[in-house]
C-alpha cells in the first residue's frame, strides 16, 4: 500500500539528510551525544561492572530481590494512568464543545498546577491530607471521624494522578479539538446518535492523543520517587525511590542503581513500543518516540 506523500512534522519517516539540514541539526546532535548517548553508555557500564571495575552480571541478577518493588511500580503507575485517562478523556471531550474563549480558560486551569514545582505541589498535598491536615481537621471540626488519607497505596496513586493529570488532558484535548466538526455532522447524517459518534468518529480520531497522554503519564509515574516516599506507607516503596536510595543515602551503590535504571528504561521502551502499535505512523501519535 502506498503511503501518504505529505508527511506531517514529527513522524518517523526517514529522509535523506541534506548538508543544510545536518548543519541545522548539529547543535541538537551535539547535545544528544553529550547528555543522552554518553550518559546512557555510562549507565550501561556501571550496570555491568563491579566495585573494582571488572565485568559482572551480578548487578543484574541481584535485581531479582527487587522484583516486588518493580511489579508494584508497574501496577501503581498503570492504575494512575488508567484513572488519569478516565478523568481526562470525558473532560477533554466536554471542553471541546465549549466556545473558544471558554476553552482557553479551561485549558489555563489545567495548566496552572504545572506552574508550581512538583515537589512543592506534593508537599502541599501532604499538608492537606495528613492525619492532622486541613481535610481531617475540617472533618473533626464537623464532628466526623478522621480519614486515613495519607501513607497508603491510595495516597500514592492519588498523588500521581494529581500531578500528572494535565499531561493526559493536554495531548487528548489537542488532538480532539482539531477534529473537523463536519465529520461529526457527517456521522450524524449517516445515522449515528451521540454515543455512536463518539465511538465511531471521536475515539478513533483522538487515539493519537490518548497514546501520547498514556506515555506522558505512565513514564513519569513508573519512575516517580518523591510522591511515593512522601505520601505512601512503608510498603509503597517504588523503583524510583529504590534508585534514589542506592545513589546517595546508603553506600553509594551506583552499579545497582544503574542496573535498576536500565531495567526501568527497558520497561518504558517496551511499553512505548506496544502503545505505538495502536496508531499509524501518521498524525503525530508517535511524536514521542
Amino acid at each position, binding site marked *: 500500500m502506498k503511503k501518504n506523500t505529505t508527511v506531517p512534522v514529527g513522524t518517523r519517516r526517514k529522509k535523506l539528510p541534506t548538508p543544510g539540514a545536518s548543519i541545522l541539526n548539529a547543535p541538537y546532535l551535539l547535545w544528544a551525544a553529550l547528555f543522552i548517548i554518553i550518559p546512557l553508555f555510562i549507565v550501561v557500564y556501571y550496570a555491568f561492572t563491579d566495585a573494582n571495575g571488572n565485568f559482572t552480571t551480578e548487578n543484574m541478577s541481584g535485581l531479582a530481590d527487587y522484583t516486588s518493588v518493580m511489579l508494584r511500580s508497574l501496577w501503581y503507575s498503570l492504575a494512575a494512568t488508567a484513572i488519569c485517562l478516565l478523568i481526562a478523556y470525558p473532560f477533554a471531550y466536554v471542553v471541546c464543545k465549549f466556545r473558544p474563549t471558554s476553552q482557553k480558560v479551561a485549558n489555563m486551569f489545567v495548566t496552572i498546577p504545572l506552574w508550581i514545582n512538583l515537589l512543592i505541589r506534593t508537599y502541599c498535598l501532604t499538608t492537606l491530607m495528613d492525619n492532622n491536615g486541613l481535610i481531617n481537621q475540617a472533618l473533626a471540626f464537623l464532628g466526623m471521624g478522621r480519614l486515613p488519607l495519607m501513607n497508603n497505596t491510595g495516597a500514592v496513586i492519588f498523588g500521581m494522578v494529581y500531578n500528572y493529570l494535565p499531561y493526559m488532558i493536554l495531548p487528548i484535548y489537542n488532538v480532539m479539538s482539531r477534529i473537523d466538526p463536519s465529520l461529526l*455532522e457527517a456521522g450524524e447524517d449517516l445515522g449515528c446518535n451521540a454515543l455512536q459518534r463518539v465511538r465511531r468518529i471521536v475515539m478513533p480520531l483522538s487515539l493519537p492523543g490518548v497514546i501520547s497522554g498514556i506515555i506522558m503519564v505512565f513514564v513519569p509515574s513508573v519512575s516517580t520517587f518523591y510522591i511515593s516516599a512522601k505520601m505512601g506507607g512503608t510498603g509503597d516503596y517504588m523503583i524510583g525511590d529504590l534508585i534514589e536510595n542506592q545513589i546517595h543515602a546508603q553506600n553509594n551503590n551506583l552499579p545497582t542503581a544503574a542496573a535498576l535504571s536500565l531495567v526501568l528504561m527497558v520497561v518504558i521502551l517496551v511499553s512505548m513500543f506496544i502503545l505505538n502499535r495502536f496508531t499509524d505512523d501518521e498524525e503525530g501519535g508517535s511524536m514521542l518516540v
Partner: protein
Amino acid sequence: MEKKNIIELKDVSVSFDGETILDHLNLSIQDGTFVTFLGRSGCGKTTTLRIIAGFLQPDEGDVFFDSKRINEVPPHKRSVNTIFQRYALFPHLNVYENVAFGLRVKKAPKEEIAAKVSETLKLVNLEGYEKRKVTNLSGGQQQRVAIARALVNRPSVLLLDEPLSALDAKLRKDMQVELRRIQRETGITFIFVTHDQEEALSMSDTIVVMNDGKIQQIGTPVDIYNEPKNAFVADFIGESNIIDGIMNKDDTVTFAGHTFVCVDEGFAHDEPVDVVIRPEDVDVVPAGEGMITGLITQATFKGDYYELIVEVKGFKWMVQTTDAYAEGQTIGIVLDPDSIHVMHKSEYSGLYGDYSSFSDEEETAPEAGE
C-alpha cells in the same frame, strides 16, 4: 404525471444574532426530481439545506417530510443524506469503510454491506479503490467517495452542498453530467446548492432562485431563463439588458424611445415595467433599417460570437452577434415580439441590467463559498 411532495417548507424563518437569514420561506419539492437552490453566498440556500438535513431548526415555520412534520427529528433519524462542501470523509477509514459507514451504524448484515458497497462504488466509477486511504485520493475521487457514502444508504433525499466548488473546471463539467446520470439512475430526489447559474441551468429539473433569504423564483431552467420574474433573476441567470419601459396595453410596450410589439399580457394600463432583452436575442441590422439605433462603444471578439456594448439613448446594452462589428459604428436594432420579456417593477428595479460599467473581470470574479 403528478408526483407527491417529499419535502415541504411552510413559512420557515431563521435568524442568527438578529440578522434574518430566511424570511418566511415556502417551498415544495417533488419526489424524484433534481432541484437546485441557486443564489449568491449569504442568500440562505445553505441554511435551507441544513434545515432539511436537520442540523438546524427553524425559528418559525414547519418542515414536512412525506407530509409528516419533522421539525424535531434529529438528522440521524431522517431519511436524508448530505454531501458536504468539503466532503467530510472519515480520515481514519479507507474508501470501503467510509462507504460502509452508514450501513454499519444500522447494523446491516456483512454480506449486504459488501454487496451494496461494491454496487455503489461501481455506480460512482470507483471499483478497485476499496482499500485506498481517502486522504490519498484526488479531489474528484474524494467527491465520488462522498457521493457513494451518502447514496449507499438509499436516502429518499440527497442534499448536495456546493459539492463541485472545490473541483477544477474540467472535472466540474464531468461531475455535473455524472451527478445528473446518478440522479436519473437512482430516482432519488437531489437537492443541490450552488452559486453557479450555468451549473444550475444544465443539471436541474427545477431551480429555486434565492436572494436575501427569500425565494425570488421557482421554475424549470427554461422558465427561469426566458421568463424571469424580476430584475434580480434576470440579471443573475445569464446576461440581461434590463430597461425601463411603459406597458401601454397588452402586447405593446414602449422603451428606448420606440413602441414595440411583444407577447406579454396582464399588466395595468401604462404600468411602468422592467423590460428584459437577452444579448443573443438582439438582431443587428444596418443603421437606419432598425427599430432603434445605437452606437457601438466596445466590441470584443469571443470566438464564436462578437460581444458589443451598444449605447442606445444613454443606456448601454450588451449585444451578442455572429457578424463582425467595430467600435464607433452606428447600427440598427430589431427586436422580435418573442425576444422581449416584460416584468413588473420590484425592489431590484434599477439595480441591475445596465452595462455602462461592464468589464469581463467583474463577470468572472470568483465568488467566495458560503
